[in-house]
């Protein structure tokens, strides 16, 4: 017992010393679900972190620390707590599976700020949540797909049946149907966020089934590379994947976390950080389209037009009339879906050639 008390005292002393030392420098810490070299989700978060550091005055002002490939089980809590104890002023946990762990650790460290990506739980005043409206980009992709496809069918490599992914599939279909009402989408569930082997297999299966456009909601560049080999077109995911398919990529949805990270870390530095729940899209440039490539000028013009409309707020991809897959009406003519419904979305719209895993 004595030893424990001694150790506790020593720990506290170290923590106090640590925070005193770190006062002129803010430490921002990041937990990634995949490797930063995935060229997708985690890579893009890390790019955002680096952009933030650059924008706020470089290494002298902001120190960055990160842990990659942190499993979404009991390990997450330890990883987050380690950061909280090592002088981090703000900790970004960048995957849905860190939700409980983030809130648990936040309860123990009220002076540290926590930012959880894609979740919905803010149990303590020092926890914010943030996410982006990726589906806005999906709608633009759908428009392009329908104009480019001769088969009238696109292949969609999906990760897990969570609302965000379902939302993406629906937005893609709606975009495509705005051009060609008969357009269909085939979906393969890879059940992974990052597994180049599985993702490549999924792409091959879809191409063998006759799709001539591939889009993905998984994080590796493998589907792009398969599409390039087979000579069809594809959309990148999370980052600009043009290097992996110079003749293949039509565009890509780029997750641009840099602005958000800069804004939030700056708020910590200024002492103005407050809890928020952020869900921004193209208008705020949290979602950015990579250059439109490998397509005729008229398709490019159509894509740019719809992108501009979404960006200006003139058009919302989830505007009625929209029918559900089962044939019932979801949104009446002109009706716009509420954010709350979208964030819990668990059904397909008409035109998806798949059964949603329930």
């Amino acid at each position: 017992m004595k030893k424990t008390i001694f150790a506790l005292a020593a720990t506290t002393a170290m923590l106090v010393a640590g925070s005193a030392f770190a006062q002129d420098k803010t430490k921002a810490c990041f937990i990634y679900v995949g490797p930063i070299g995935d060229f997708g989700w985690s890579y893009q978060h890390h790019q955002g972190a680096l952009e933030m550091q650059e924008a706020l005055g470089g290494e002298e002002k902001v120190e960055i620390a990160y842990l990659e490939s942190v499993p979404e089980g009991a390990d997450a809590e330890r990883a987050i707590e380690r950061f909280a104890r090592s002088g981090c002023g703000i900790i970004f946990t960048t995957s849905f599976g860190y939700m409980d762990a983030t809130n648990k650790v936040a309860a123990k460290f009220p002076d540290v700020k926590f930012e959880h990506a894609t979740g919905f739980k803010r149990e303590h005043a020092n926890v914010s949540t943030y996410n982006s409206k990726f589906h806005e980009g999906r709608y633009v992709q759908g428009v392009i797909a329908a104009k480019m496809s001769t088969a009238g069918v696109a292949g969609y490599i999906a990760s897990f049946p969570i609302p965000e992914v379902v939302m993406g599939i629906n937005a893609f279909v709606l975009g495509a149907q705005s051009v060609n009402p008969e357009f269909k989408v085939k979906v393969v569930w890879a059940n992974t966020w990052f597994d180049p082997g599985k993702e490549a297999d999924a792409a091959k299966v879809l191409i063998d089934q006759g799709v001539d456009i591939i889009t993905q909601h998984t994080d590796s560049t493998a589907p792009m590379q398969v599409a390039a080999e087979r000579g069809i077109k594809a959309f990148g995911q999370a980052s600009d994947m043009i290097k992996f398919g110079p003749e293949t990529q039509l565009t890509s949805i780029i997750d641009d976390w840099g602005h958000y990270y800069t804004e939030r870390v700056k708020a910590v530095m200024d002492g103005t950080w407050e809890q928020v729940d952020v869900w921004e899209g193209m208008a705020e440039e949290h979602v950015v389209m990579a250059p439109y490539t490998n397509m005729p000028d008229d398709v490019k013009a159509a894509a740019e037009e719809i992108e501009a409309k979404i960006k200006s707020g003139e058009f919302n991809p989830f505007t009625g009339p929209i029918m559900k897959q089962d044939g019932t009406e979801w949104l009446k003519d002109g009706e716009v879906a509420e954010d709350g419904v979208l964030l819990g979305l668990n059904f397909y719209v008409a035109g998806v050639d798949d059964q949603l895993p329930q």
Partner: protein
Amino acid sequence: MRLELVKRPQQSALFSALSPFIAFGLMVVAGGVIFLILGKDPVNGLYAYFIEPLTEVWSLHELAIKAAPLILIAVGLSVCFLSSNWNIGAEGQFTIGAIAGSAIPLYFPQFQNGAVLPMMLICGAIGGAAWAAIPAILKARFNTNEILTSLMLVYVAQLILDWLVRGPWRDPAAMSFPQAPAFHSWAIVPELMPMSGRANWGIVLAIVAAVAVWFMLSRTLKGFEVKVIGQSPRAGRFGGFSTARTIVFAFLVSGALAGLAGIVEVSGAIGRLQPQISPGYGFAAIIVAFLGRLNPLGIVAAGFVLALSYLGGEAAQIGIGVTDKTVRAFQGMLLFFVLACDTLIHYRVRLVRPAPAAPPAAAPVTETAHGHG
């Protein structure tokens, strides 16, 4: 010219006991070299890796959390491996144990009293044992290869878990996200010393299990039977032991302990059933079992060493900026050195020069090395 392994007539007892330490020492040296090649200070690197996690109380709690499932699973695996049953599917038995145990609070949420947790633990153990019984019976009845069947059942178990948390067991309040509702307070394995960290009674359970299995293996007829069958099934048959019965027994013990580890992990460390509940404990425990020389008491120590390698890996990532891949590399090196040391204790390396006229040499290794997966 080629290398041959020749079985030593007698094995050094001293080196058998020292082997894990030698292996650990070799890993430290090799790790230091890797840090050097990466351009990092090896002393800092090794300090971050092996010492830093031991310097803080909360981190010791985390060590216990990490070691508990590894020890529980590896203790069970030792029974399997000693009887030459290569159960590679502990990860699946862990998963099914977690599911079976979780069924109680999920199906009977109103049932809240002191009986819930013991029932969950029992169901977890039964679930794991039942899952392990499949490869066991297939092997005992049809002589199927248990390495393949047990391994493939891992993926089946994970898909069942996935289906449950996305479908029937999904928390209605979770906005369509895949996770089961959080356990109520009676269904959670209590923390040992809540004041200083979150370690729970799982580690105590693991050590009790290790002592019990150690007693069984070294002091009872059943333990003798397990070891005899493992070393020589024929001799075992002469002794009146049934190979089939031993296969089933070893798998049931192993599966039950893996299942117990599964329910302790979700109920103690995570707090709910979710798609991902294990970072590969069932596979890492294979390293633990061999590092502990298939001796349950050695496994307790080995479990802490491997747990340390996870914690240290994080400390090294943050402290000196190496990637998470170094953790895997370190663990791989550890297993490699343990097996290499074992091989050299049992075998001598001989250099054979080709002799053109001589008839082909006798089969170099007449008996497969003991303890090799």
